[in-house]
């Protein structure tokens, strides 16, 4: 028995790798800013991240390849234009040829149209591929979230997981939707410009390229300092946001202590640091922009000057005229050359924040705090392994122990069993282990020692889904999702058997309540069921359990105060619910307790007493106390 406990404990530990916990549990924006220093060359780490993206991009390969194939075409169409301008000018100034002029003009028009159409196709295909793969990624993140253990959700705020599925995938998608991904196309354009310039006049080209090394150095210097400013901004903004969020959450304290002014002053200080960092970034950004623009114009000046030098070397005026077209073409090429360089920093920013988001998303996907996939789960059809409820002993807990933390047992060596069709009530004070018992039965948590048998089968040997299919659960907090009543009863957005819905609603005595609403069983349910009363929500949950029609009923009665009319309905419904089923009920109503065949009294994680209502009352121990506490003293 001790050994069993040990091995069970180790598997439990193995299910929660300690390494996964800190990275995936608390990646607040601030934490990620700290994790990822912008100083380090992003390449190596980002390559790893890009690799994780590959499976999502792969199914979109036709679109991606299509888009990539279009890149050189649209680049060519764009870059041909200055070349054709030169030809047009040459046809007038040098060749004096009408046909050459007409053909150059025609080609120019063609280039324009090709640029438009291919440019659109290229963007469309890339966006479609990008957005689709992001939707796939989102689906996988959601799926993964659905597989995380319940223990994970005990520790992790929902908001954090929500952020992974929504905002983080969005920022990653920004790389596509903002066109930053087209930075690849920019490289093609740059190479194309260089090619065309060299082809036109290599000497002029080399003169232009003289400006490049100093420009490169300047850009790199500015960018390095901009990156520092950017890191500062990120740190400050996350400081600002967490400060504000705390002030909003604790606003009553701030008000109660009259601390508005000092808090505002503190916030102002951080805010000002943020602004100063932004000033620096703006200055550098403006500098980068201006330097690039000015250098491009200086290149134009260089070209002009060198053209005059070259023209001086050739004597014939016809040849001199030939320089005009070239100069004009160069003027346009130079401008096309510098635009991508100028926009580089914007794209870099988008890519950086996308990569930071990717880190969080893939970190979450790598978090293995999940329920292991059972081998049989997906293979066998629904009804194949349904255990018979004919088995005389439907349920057995045998020396079961469990703790949410290893050193703090919530259930201690609990043993009990239930016959098929028996109605068992569980009672006990708060924290006695009632709800935990249900959770273990459904394998929402893994018990650490002992055995739980359902219809003679150890639940550890049953695939989770098969096991859970045997139970209809009605939890204490009724969970209704946005949709219709019918969808909520069927617990499915699509497969709704309306006749069955009506039937079960009438069996729990709620059909008239539902049909009073506009839309009847198709009446709207707002998020979290907020437009239905607590009693109505309870009844819908009961109907849901009946609709499910599983051999076991597990009911955690709500303690909420409900008006007496609804109370009567609920009492009747519970009877209906338990009929013909093995029922485990965490009971809070006297009527429910009395109707059960046997009562298990839990006390501090142990099964303290069991028997019928009368037997236990006579014994005059715990149950008698509890009974007086809950029902007697009022």
């Amino acid at each position, binding site marked *: 028995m001790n050994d069993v406990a040990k091995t069970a404990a180790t598997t439990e530990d193995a299910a929660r790798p300690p390494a996964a916990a800190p990275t995936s549990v608390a990646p607040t924006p601030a934490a990620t800013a700290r994790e990822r220093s912008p100083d380090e060359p992003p390449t190596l780490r980002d390559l790893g991240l890009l690799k994780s993206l590959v499976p999502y991009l792969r199914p979109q390969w036709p679109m991606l390849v299509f888009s990539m194939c279009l890149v050189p075409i649209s680049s060519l169409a764009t870059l041909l234009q200055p070349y054709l301008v030169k030809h*047009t000018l040459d*046809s007038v100034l040098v060749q004096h040829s009408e046909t050459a002029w007409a053909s150059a*003009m025609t080609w*120019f028009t063609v280039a*324009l149209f090709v*640029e438009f159409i291919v*440019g*659109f196709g290229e963007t*469309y295909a890339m*966006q479609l591929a990008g*957005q689709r793969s*992001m*939707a796939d990624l989102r689906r996988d993140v959601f*799926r993964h*979230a*659905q597989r995380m253990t319940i223990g994970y959700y005990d520790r992790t705020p929902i908001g954090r997981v*929500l952020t992974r*599925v929504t905002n983080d995938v969005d920022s990653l998608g920004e790389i596509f939707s903002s066109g930053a991904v087209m930075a690849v196309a920019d490289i093609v354009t740059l190479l194309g410009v260089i090619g065309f310039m060299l082809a036109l006049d290599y000497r002029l080209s080399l003169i232009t390229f003289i400006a490049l090394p100093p420009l490169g150095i300047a850009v790199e210097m500015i960018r390095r300092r901009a990156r520092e400013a950017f890191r500062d901004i990120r740190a400050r903004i996350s400081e600002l946001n967490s400060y*504000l969020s*705390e*002030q*909003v959450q604790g*606003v009553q304290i*701030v*008000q109660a*202590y009259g601390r*508005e002014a*000092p808090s*505002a002053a503190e*916030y102002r200080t951080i805010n000002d640091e943020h*602004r100063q960092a932004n*000033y620096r970034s*703006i*200055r550098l*950004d*403006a500098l980068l*922009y*201006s330097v690039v*623009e*000015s250098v491009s114009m*200086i290149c134009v*000046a*260089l070209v*002009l000057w060198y053209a*005059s030098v070259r023209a001086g070397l050739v004597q014939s005026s016809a040849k*001199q005229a030939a320089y*005009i077209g070239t*100069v*004009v073409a160069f003027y346009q090429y130079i401008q096309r050359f510098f635009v991508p360089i100028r926009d580089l920093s914007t794209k870099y920013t988008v890519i950086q924040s996308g990569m930071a988001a990717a880190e969080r998303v893939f970190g979450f996907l790598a978090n293995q705090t999940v329920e292991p996939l059972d081998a049989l789960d997906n293979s066998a059809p629904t009804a194949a392994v349904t255990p018979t409820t004919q088995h005389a002993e439907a349920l057995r807990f045998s020396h079961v122990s469990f703790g949410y933390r290893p050193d703090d047992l919530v259930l201690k060596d609990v043993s009990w069993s239930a016959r098929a069709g028996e109605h068992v009530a569980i009672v006990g004070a708060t924290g006695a282990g009632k709800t935990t018992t249900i959770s273990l039965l459904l394998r929402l948590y893994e018990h650490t020692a002992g055995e739980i048998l359902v219809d003679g089968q150890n639940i550890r040997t049953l695939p989770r889904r098969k096991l*859970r*299919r045997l139970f209809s659960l009605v*939890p204490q907090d009724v969970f209704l999702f946005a949709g219709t009543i019918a969808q909520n009863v069927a*617990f*499915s*957005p699509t497969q709704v058997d309306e006749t069955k819905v009506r039937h079960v609603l009438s069996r729990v005595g709620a059909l008239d309540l539902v049909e009073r609403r506009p839309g009847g069983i198709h009446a709207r349910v707002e998020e979290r069921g907020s437009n239905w009363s607590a009693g109505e929500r309870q009844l819908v949950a009961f109907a849901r359990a009946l609709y*499910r029609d599983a051999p076991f009923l597990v009911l955690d009665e709500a303690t909420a*105060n409900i008006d007496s009319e609804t109370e009567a309905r609920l009492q009747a419904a519970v009877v209906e619910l338990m009929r013909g089923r093995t029922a485990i009920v965490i009971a809070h109503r006297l009527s429910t307790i009395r109707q059960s065949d046997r009562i298990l009294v839990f006390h501090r994680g142990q099964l303290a007493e069991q028997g019928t209502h009368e037997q236990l009352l006579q014994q005059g*121990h715990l149950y008698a106390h509890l009974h007086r*506490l809950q029902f007697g*003293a009022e």
Partner: protein
Amino acid sequence: MTAAAPRTLGSYVRPHSARLWQGMGLLLITNALDKSIPWLLKDAVDALVSGALGRVAGSAALVGLLAAGMGVVRTVSRTTVFNVGRDVEFELRNDLLARLHQLGPSFFQRMPTGDTMSRAINDLAQVRVMVGFGLLNIVNSVFAYSLALALMLALSPELTLWAVAPLPLLVLVARLLGKQMFSRSQASQEALGALSSRVQEALAGVRLVRAFGAEAQQEALFEEANQNALQKNMGLVVLRGFTWPLMVGVASLGTLAVLFRGTAAVRNGTLTVGTLVAFLAYVESLKWPTMGLGYIMAVLQRGRASFNRVREILEAEPDISDSKCARSPRQAGALRVQGLNYAYAGRPVLQDVSFDLPAQSSLAIVGRTGSGKSTLAALLARILPTPAGSVFLDGDDVTQLKLRELRKTVGFAQQEAFLFSQTVAQNIGYALPETASEHARQRIRQAARAASVEDEIDELSDGWQTVVGERGVQLSGGQKQRVALARALLSEPRVLIMDDPLSAVDAKTEARILDSLEQAGKGRSFVLVTNRIAAAQRCEQILVLDAGKVVEQGDHATLLARGGLYASLSARQRLEEELGAL
């Protein structure tokens, strides 16, 4: 800014108008320099044609010079205008917090933290982009267009007409697409919002989904929302993808027209090559401002919508504010409540509550969950909007007292112990101007001792300098409550209202704390909201609430003897104790 004065964007931008004008002036110079370069190009090309090569080199030198000058002016102009955007953001941010500090529960129930934060982060960013980037680009476009058009007209009116011929088309396209862009981006935002609600729902119900094995259904629901978001987003993205090449195309039509007519004119000899080249350069230089037009439109629209969202916070009415003739409270510490009614969302929470708490006495408020105890406690301290003429402190209506001083006089310790992400010492010394001096440290230690948390703080990893709160060490529920209580005790209010501040503390510790409170709190009035009869019975008066009404009132012995709700609560707790002892 107590009253919600309407805040327009103008009121934030106006104070910076001097710098904005300066930035605009510099922008004009930048554009003038920028637009003179094609003119020089014209001279150079014409000189090249005529073989006056010296003049070409001269023009080249001038272009280089202008370019260098332009670099300087452009840097300054961009810096100036963008900085104004950041300044507006800075002030908006400060004002937002100042306003949030004034707002009460009715606002925060309407606008959850997440929503407030999203407005303070995302919407504020959009506003800043509109003010800095949007303004710069609009003004820049205006300057670029007017200067280029003027120069082009000077060169050749006919060719100018050709060059601007596609413009009306462009404006039309921009307007059509702009409208579409707006509606599509809204649709996309909505789809994302719906997706987010779906995920939120699935995660909130994760236990039930798991128990029902309904993962597949949830995934189907999610996938529906996911595909919808994809579709809506593609709608937007396609439009954007379409806009860009279209703008490029239309803008290039100008180049085509100029090239077509211009070369013809050059052949006829009615136009010099240089002029044509300059023209082409001008048309080219207008390409970017033109193409950016659609983008700027989107920036402006988004910025406007965002500012309205931010304004909802800035103009929200505080529940509680100082009345005009507010007085300072007297310091005796007697509370009188008279016919207090309070309703929330149309539902009465408290009805006709009256009691008298003489100075230096104690009162316990007991009752079931939902009976209105906490609301009553909050109304006494004017944490909630106390109705006028129902709560009196030393004979003065609390709504007629200066809020800040009232809150100093009437301390309030909450059940939900919220601690800030600061050190324990700073949290306890929250009411102090500083926590570093020896005197302050003494007071903090004293308060912690009274709240029975001193020893535990000493044992923390960094002792009193341990950072707690959301981003610090997680204290247990009971520790948090006691730290929060110490914080309330430190300011030594004349009246201390405690809203069940010890619910997570075990009964023994509670008794110890109450003992020390009684000793330390001589001369102070207490109101204690509690579920524990053991704590309530220490008070001189006990008020029993049920469904918002006072059902019983008196001291412990009297109430027990009455055999009503109090007596039954008391019996119940005795049973619970017995049960616990088993």
